[in-house]
C-alpha cells in the first residue's frame, strides 16, 4: 500500500532564521511520512545545533525579503541594514510574524526532528574551524566528516543541499 521506503539526506549550510526553516520543515515532514532522514550540519548551518538558539535574519543583500507591513510588502534598503539594531529589529519582526501565523519556531521543529529520530551530524571540521564545543550542542548528535556524509548520501534516495 505505501510506497517503497525512500530515505533522505540534507546538507545544512546556512544558519540564519529564514534559512533554518527549509531543512527542518523538510526533515520533520519527511520523517512524519516515514522516511529515514539524516541532516549534516556544516559551516553556517552548524550553529543550528547549539542548545541556545539565537537566530537572526538580515535584509542585507536580500532583495526578495519583503515583509507584510501596513497592507503592503516592504523591503529595506541595504544601507539601512548597516544601522545598529536594524538586524535585531528585523529578526524580532520575523519571529513575531511567525508566531502570529501559527508557524512552528525553529526550537519546536528541532525538538520534533529529534523526537522523530532524524539523524543529526555535526561537521567535525566546522567545529574545529569555528571553535564550537560539543557540550554547547544539543544531545544526541553524531560528529563526522565529509566521508560520513558521502556514505549517507550514497544510501539516500533524496539528497538535498540547503
Amino acid at each position, binding site marked *: *500500500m*505505501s*510506497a517503497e521506503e525512500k530515505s533522505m539526506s540534507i546538507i545544512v549550510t546556512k544558519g540564519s532564521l529564514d534559512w533554518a526553516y527549509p531543512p527542518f*520543515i523538510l526533515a*520533520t*515532514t519527511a520523517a*512524519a*511520512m*516515514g522516511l529515514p532522514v539524516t541532516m549534516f550540519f556544516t559551516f553556517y548551518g552548524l550553529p543550528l545545533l547549539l542548545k541556545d538558539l539565537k537566530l537572526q535574519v538580515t535584509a542585507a543583500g536580500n532583495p526578495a525579503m519583503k515583509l507584510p507591513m501596513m497592507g503592503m510588502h516592504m523591503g529595506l534598503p541595504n544601507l539601512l541594514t548597516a544601522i545598529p539594531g536594524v538586524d535585531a529589529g528585523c529578526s524580532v519582526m520575523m519571529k513575531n510574524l511567525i508566531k502570529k*501565523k*501559527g*508557524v*512552528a519556531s525553529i526550537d519546536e*521543529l528541532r525538538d*520534533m526532528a529529534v523526537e522523530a529520530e532524524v539523524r543529526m551530524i555535526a561537521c567535525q571540521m566546522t567545529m574545529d574551524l569555528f571553535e564550537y564545543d560539543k557540550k554547547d550542542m544539543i544531545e544526541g548528535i553524531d560528529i563526522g566528516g565529509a566521508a560520513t556524509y558521502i556514505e549517507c548520501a550514497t544510501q539516500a534516495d533524496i539528497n538535498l543541499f540547503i
Partner: protein
Amino acid sequence: MADHTLDAKGLNCPLPILKARKALKEVPDNGTLEIIATDPGAVADFEAFCRQTGNELLEHSEDDGIYTFLIKKTA
C-alpha cells in the same frame, strides 16, 4: 465518532502533518483520527501524507475556512 480528534486550527505547515503523525500513534489499528485545520495547504498535504504512509483518508470537507479530515489508521 472518531477515536481521536486533533485541533490543528491556526497552525501552519508543517505542524498539521507533524501533529497528526503524533496523534495517530495513539489511535488503535483501523481506528480513526479526525483533524480540524485552517491551513488550506493541509488538503493536498493530508492526501499526500496518506498516500505515502498507507493510511486512508476517509473523507475531507471544508466549511467556511475550517477543513476537517478523517483518517483511518491502516498502516
